């Protein structure tokens, strides 16, 4: 049993109001598209109108003649260096050099005095193509003689992974029951409401980029690399970010264009996407074809699992290589078994690139495996939750891949979810058309490695106390994309300093002003930026206590508290500071305010600054690809969904949901539950409605929210979100670990299993639409006859 320290905190664990409460509820919060600069130009990308072709000629002359157009650029005007996530797969250019690889690919950019002129100019640009045969699915990409999209990816295979731990085939020989299931996940999209936007302003040899991004650091890094600049000459400032969910990490082409167009015109340039282009930019979930074979013993203990997963990746790689690893690397975190074989293939196709979306590569495999084990549990006559409890990983264990798992309470999560949902009374006892299902999930709390090779720490933080002690400025490049990272980091800063939360102010996501953090991805900021900020706060506190010792000595007040100290010198250990008051621990009436101590420090020593640093160190796992999956801490979660299926029409209604998250200490319960609600929301949408579709020529069919069907307020069930008191993570500051992404990973499995329970037919292809349900019910009837 994990020993949990007493969590007697002033700010951590409290549902404090967000630091952006006023600006975001009054319309004053500024997003990139809201910014306006004097003499600013407006720009858009020129996009391909065919899926796969050689570019024979681009005629921009008519556009250039249009009054108000300031510049038109194509590949010949920009650096040709390729970029991406892994150097072996740097396959993307700012603009297509010779070929376009999907309908919507980036060919160039135009800027003009206003939006209207930009749109007119785009219509005047003539691109001549020599069309090439194209592939739009895994099936087409893998056919013999299929068109090759890249020379460097023969057979259109862009990534291949083969992990083999233990001996699965041997394990199957001893199994009581072995079962294979093939399941399919669809192409989904983040569907943040704020479209991508970037503003570039070039002054002398310095560049400033304002951007709606999840990571200012990587954006700065890639801009410097491709543009051949020093990182310090580029300032990246994130504004408020209108949602990200993984879609605002990969480069969009807007930042490069804004920078280059600004340099050419000598004016500030705002580059923006409209809604359909945001869909075309893609980077959402990969369609996946997943086959699992699992052997279990009589008691339901998993003896081994074989997974073969194929991913349709779209035209470029970007973060897609990490998605491919994540499709398999976390299964053994959740369930403890001894033999695991994972083979994965990511194929390139002539569709918009896929990448990271909330839960990164994992939610669909979670859906597939959770449904697969429900079918196994059914076959061996076992309750699905019991099956999961038997296989749940325990705390302080190591996975087959050598990942160290500290806190882990999956068993308790299953038990609590079972009890609060009334599972025992409902499962198998609900009327036809009504069902209840369970799914498990979880995620890393930050990736163990930087996205590029470096010895930099993962996060550093800084806190500066204002001259008179009345404000604390907290600096970090952590990015609040809505999850509330600014708020929880301020809570941790306030806690560590012993200073009022209300007097702390965040300077986040500005590469000039704030201090290094890799940004919002892999559910990393609360833990990683949290450590850096906590340590910075502790340094501030230490300096305050030292200053207070001097002041108490000088004031003579020390005599009042002398009794217990005896004749020795007063030490910092005799003092503490909480909520802005510095006091003697044994004699609390002997006290000073933080403000007066800080002011004295400023007067006698100069600016009061605290600094913090975090690096996860060498984490477990040394197989190829271990970097994707290794993490200082892992969350786990159980979700239960109850659904109603109309047995006539196939219509599905999600009526009730429960989530129990093993998330360590909860810094801000209000924000925490908000994460769970949103994760459930996305998962329900992906299970039943959402899918990005294309026509037979690769043209996007539903790049809008009328036809890409997000759940509305009328579709969303109540969500009961619960936490575990016993959850405490030794590798996290104040015992924290992740919630944001992990909470999306069980949802599709839970909802799909509930639908199966309601209708008695297993539907193995997402989304489980009303039509699929209706057809499955018709087939069932037919087969009966």
């Amino acid at each position, binding site marked *: 049993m994990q020993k949990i320290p007493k969590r007697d905190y002033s700010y951590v664990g409290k549902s404090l109001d967000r630091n952006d409460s006023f600006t975001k*509820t009054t319309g004053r919060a500024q*997003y990139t598209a809201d910014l306006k600069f004097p003499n600013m130009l407006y720009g858009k990308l020129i996009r391909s109108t065919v899926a796969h072709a050689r570019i024979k000629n681009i005629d921009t002359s008519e556009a250039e003649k249009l009054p108000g157009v300031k510049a038109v650029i194509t590949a010949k005007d920009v650096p040709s260096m390729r970029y991406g996530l892994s150097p072996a797969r740097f396959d993307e250019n700012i603009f297509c050099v010779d070929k376009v690889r999907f309908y919507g690919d980036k060919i160039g950019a135009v800027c003009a005095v206003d939006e209207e002129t930009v749109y007119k100019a785009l219509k005047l640009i003539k691109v001549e193509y020599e069309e090439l045969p194209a592939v739009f699915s895994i099936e087409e990409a893998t056919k013999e003689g299929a068109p090759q999209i890249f020379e460097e990816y023969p057979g259109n295979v862009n990534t291949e992974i083969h992990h083999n731990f233990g001996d699965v085939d041997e394990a199957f020989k001893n199994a009581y029951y072995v079962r294979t299931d093939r399941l399919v996940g669809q192409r989904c999209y983040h569907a943040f*409401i704020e479209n991508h936007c970037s503003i570039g302003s070039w002054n002398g040899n310095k560049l400033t980029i304002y951007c709606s991004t999840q990571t200012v650091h990587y954006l700065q890094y890639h801009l410097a690399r491709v543009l051949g600049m020093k990182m310090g000459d580029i300032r990246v400032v994130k504004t408020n970010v*209108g*949602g990200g969910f993984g879609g605002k990490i990969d480069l969009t082409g807007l930042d490069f264009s804004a920078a280059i167009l600004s340099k050419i015109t000598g004016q500030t340039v705002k580059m923006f996407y409209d*809604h359909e282009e945001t869909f075309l930019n893609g980077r959402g979930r990969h369609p996946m074809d997943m086959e699992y074979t699992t052997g279990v013993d009589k008691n339901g203990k998993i003896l081994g699992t074989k997974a073969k997963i194929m991913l349709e990746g779209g035209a470029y790689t970007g973060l897609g290589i990490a998605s491919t690893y994540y499709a398999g690397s976390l299964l053994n975190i959740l369930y403890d078994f001894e033999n695991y074989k994972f083979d994965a293939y990511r194929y390139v196709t002539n569709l918009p690139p896929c990448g990271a979306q909330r839960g990164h590569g994992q939610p669909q495999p979670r859906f597939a495996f959770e449904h697969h084990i429900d079918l196994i549990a059914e076959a061996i006559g076992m309750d699905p939750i019991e099956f999961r409890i038997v296989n749940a990983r325990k705390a302080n264990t190591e996975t087959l891949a050598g990942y160290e798992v500290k806190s882990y309470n999956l068993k308790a999560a299953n038990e609590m979810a079972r009890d609060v949902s009334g599972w025992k009374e409902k499962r198998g006892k609900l009327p036809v058309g009504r069902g209840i299902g369970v799914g498990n999930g979880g995620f890393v709390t930050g990736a163990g490695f930087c996205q590029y090779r470096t010895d930099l720490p993962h996060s550093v933080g800084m806190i500066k106390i204002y001259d008179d002690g009345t404000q604390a400025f907290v600096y970090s490049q952590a990015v609040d994309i*809505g999850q509330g990272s600014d708020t929880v980091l301020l809570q941790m800063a306030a806690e560590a300093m012993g200073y009022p939360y209300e007097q702390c102010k965040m300077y986040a996501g500005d590469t000039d002003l704030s201090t290094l953090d890799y940004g919002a991805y892999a559910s990393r900021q609360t833990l990683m930026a949290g450590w850096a900020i906590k340590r910075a706060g502790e340094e501030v506190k230490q300096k305050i206590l030292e200053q207070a010792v001097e002041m108490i000595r000088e004031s003579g007040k020390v005599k009042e508290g002398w009794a217990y100290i005896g004749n020795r010198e007063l030490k910092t250990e005799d003092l503490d500071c909480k909520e802005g008051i510095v006091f003697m621990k044994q004699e609390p009436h002997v006290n000073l305010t933080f403000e007066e101590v800080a002011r004295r420090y400023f007067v006698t020593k100069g600016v009061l600054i605290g600094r913090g640093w975090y690096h996860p160190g060498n984490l477990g796992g040394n197989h190829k690809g271990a970097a994707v999956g290794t993490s200082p801490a892992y969350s786990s979660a159980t979700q239960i969904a109850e659904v109603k299926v109309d047995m006539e029409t196939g219509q599905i209604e999600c009526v009730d949901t429960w989530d129990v998250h093993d998330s360590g200490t909860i810094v801000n319960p209000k924000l925490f539950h908000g994460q769970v*609600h*949103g994760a459930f929301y996305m998962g329900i949408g992906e299970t039943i409605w959402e899918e990005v579709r294309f026509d037979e020529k690769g043209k996007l069919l539903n790049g809008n929210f009328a036809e890409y069907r997000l759940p509305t307020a009328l579709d969303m069930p109540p969500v009961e979100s619960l936490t575990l008191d016993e959850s405490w993570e030794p590798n996290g500051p104040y015992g924290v670990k992740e919630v944001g992404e992990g909470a999306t990973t069980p949802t599709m499995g839970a909802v799909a299993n509930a639908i199966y329970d309601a209708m008695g037919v297993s539907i193995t292809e997402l989304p489980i639409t009303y039509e699929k349900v209706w057809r499955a019910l018709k087939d069932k009837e037919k087969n009966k006859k």
Partner: protein
Amino acid sequence: MSNSVIGKDGVKRYLITVNVNGSEYTKAVKANVLLVNFLREELDLTGTKKGCELGDCGCCTIMLDGKPINSCLALAVEADGREVTTIEGIADGDELDIVQEKFIEHGAYQCGFCTPGMIVSSRALLNENPNPTEYQVREAIAGNLCRCTGYVNIVKAVLDAADEK
């Protein structure tokens, strides 16, 4: 229709007067200027967001003569002589409206991008129906998409605001 002038480009501009959040603004606009662009570009009222520009997401919701509409589906000239309330007109200076207070209290927003439209829709509902049922709240905001919150806390906030009024 009001007075018009023809610009050097040969395109006609209409002189419109719109009361926005209690102040009258007179501007010359082309016939094709969307109300959302008029508010954002001409008046710098960027609290009203541009999301889908197709009337699907609702983040550009404003009140036109008290009724919530998508300002991306209206032309600026349609607002001539009428009253517009945007998110900037919901609070009274620094004094927040009860809906705004309840959004903060219940954690009813995350990224905040849909929030202006969501608050305007909610305020419009409560003006019309001070005691809505949960279903009526959900129906009133069904045209406002939010990808962050699952609407769970938004619905709670609006119901709570109704209770306190």
